[in-house]
């Protein structure tokens, strides 16, 4: 039987649609030309310049510090929120669910402005700490939703079984609940990490002097015209992202 070519063509078209722009970016990062219009030969000049570009390294460090800390904190808070939502059925839970869910659909610009106003009203110095707080705020909702999904088919008599067999609350949590929720916690954490590291809108509002994150740095570099550097930086980020996704999928597979 002759196979239809249509599925292959559609798949190819979609892949081209998704990845062609990225491919152009990657290719251009090795282009000697300062402007992307024409190919003037292979070079690593942009990468070496990038290595010596202090401000970018500073921004990257800021971004990583914020992403790591805010994803850890939001995993902790988001998980407890999910547990509370799942376990305790009171009338307030509907309101609680709404409050947790709203940040997912609220326009980012609204959150950015409201947080800026809040920080100013509270007399807080804008900086890394305010960015951290802002990121935790929206990451909690995502983590809570991911963990909540994991909890839907979680049988809590397993926790009772652990207690029944002599485990105290702490032991039941660490030996049973956390290992079983781990895929959800890892997925939630990774989601929070990626959301935090590339957030622009909210960060833009709550960042202060000296607390520039990578997306904001990239934005200002484009405005001041150094696209080849950005191409190189983006390629590195891309490689790191692919590696992270690959590793995390591998870890999740081993778990089950």
């Amino acid at each position: 039987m002759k196979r239809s070519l249509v599925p292959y063509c559609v798949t190819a078209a979609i892949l081209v649609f998704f990845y062609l722009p990225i491919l152009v970016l990657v290719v251009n990062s090795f282009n000697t030309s300062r402007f992307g219009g024409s190919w003037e030969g292979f070079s690593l000049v942009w990468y070496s310049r990038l290595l010596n570009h202090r401000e970018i390294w500073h921004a990257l460090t800021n971004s990583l510090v914020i992403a790591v800390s805010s994803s850890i904190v939001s995993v902790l808070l988001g998980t407890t929120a999910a547990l509370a939502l799942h376990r305790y059925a009171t009338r307030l839970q509907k309101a609680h669910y709404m409050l947790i869910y709203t940040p997912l659909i609220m326009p980012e610009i609204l959150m950015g402005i409201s947080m800026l106003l809040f920080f100013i009203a509270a007399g807080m110095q804008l900086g890394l700490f305010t960015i951290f707080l802002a990121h935790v705020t929206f990451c909690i909702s995502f983590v809570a939703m991911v963990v909540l999904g994991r909890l839907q088919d979680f049988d809590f008599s397993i926790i009772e079984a652990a207690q029944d067999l002599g485990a105290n609350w702490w032991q039941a949590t660490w030996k049973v609940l956390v290992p079983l929720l781990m895929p959800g916690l890892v997925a939630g954490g990774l989601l929070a990490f990626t959301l935090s590291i590339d957030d622009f809108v909210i960060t833009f509002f709550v960042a202060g002097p000296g607390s520039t994150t990578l997306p904001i740095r990239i934005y200002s570099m484009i405005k001041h015209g150094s696209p080849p550097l950005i191409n190189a930086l983006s390629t590195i980020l891309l490689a790191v992202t692919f590696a992270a996704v690959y590793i995390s999928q591998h870890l999740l597979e081993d778990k089950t």
Partner: protein
Amino acid sequence: MNAPDFLEFKNVSRHFGSIRAVDQVSLSIRKGEFFSLLGPSGCGKTTLLRILAGFERPDTGCVILSGQDITQLPPNRRKVNTIFQSYALFPHLTVRDNIAFGLRIEKRPQREIDHEVERMLELIQMKAEAGKFPDTISGGQKQRVAIARALIKKPQVLLLDEPLAALDLKLRQRMLIELDLIHDEVGITFLYVTHDQGEAMSLSDRIAVMNSGIIEQVGTPAEIYEAPRSSFVAAFIGDTNFFEGRVAELIGNEYSRLVIDGFPDVTVFNDKQLAVNNLIYLSVRPEKFHISRERQEKSPRHNVVPGRVEEVIYQGSLTRYWVRVQEYRIAVTQQHSRFLLDEKPITWDENVWVSWHADDGFMLERYSQSDEQLVTLPE
């Protein structure tokens, strides 16, 4: 079986909102006994079990286990272990690690743990599956792992919460025998919660029948079947026929004459010492009746009423009849101990005589509202 009381519930109550799940329950269970809590869903049996396990705190009353008041102890400090209805095995641990869990928590020496786990794997005959994860073993095997995981803790009482409900019929019957064997082998007290009278009857030394939060009757399976103390117990355990009547006369100390609308006088054993004019239900189980074409009056203690066969269901070892007697549709089952084909069997629309011995009926007082619903038997 005359060991002293070992586990006691004293006036235990537990309310959920306005619902009384457990209402002033007092109960004593002996050491080594296989004791069942039997009742329909929502009767409070599981709540009572969870109170003993420590997952629920009673509003009032206390629980005493070998002389110690354990009412306020958390679940992990009680010498009782539970087999959950869903087994609740740890999916991230192998069979071996599931069984070892309780001892690991106690931080026992590794060698002792290994030794005990080996012993348990032998008991449940699952040495070959020790390295498997719960997802990859069958329902019956999960059940056995759950039992081993609880027994390794050497509990004073093993609690079983409808442990066979999730299994199919054939497996259920096999596990029933296995549970019985395990109980004989380890000799610890079993508290078994079920809504299945068959399970309770075949396994238990004693049964407590529960209904809407209270205990209706405690007794051996035979006591509960043959001499139910309330119409609920009579109807819940096995099938029975109820007749509304009134005590008309006492015959000596032991028997009474009853008046039932449309029936000739009925004699019944009066163990409850009910007085003349008491309103009662007469309950007679289907297998206690005898039906025949000719009127047979074997003794003055036999009651005989005429009726008409409305329905016949032949089931091989027995036949079920529904016989119309005035306003009642009486369920009758007859065992066939003789070869049937030689005789002309009783069939639809035949006029028959239904008889039973006075000792085979029992009287139940009419007192509560809920009794009213029981008069018409589900068919």
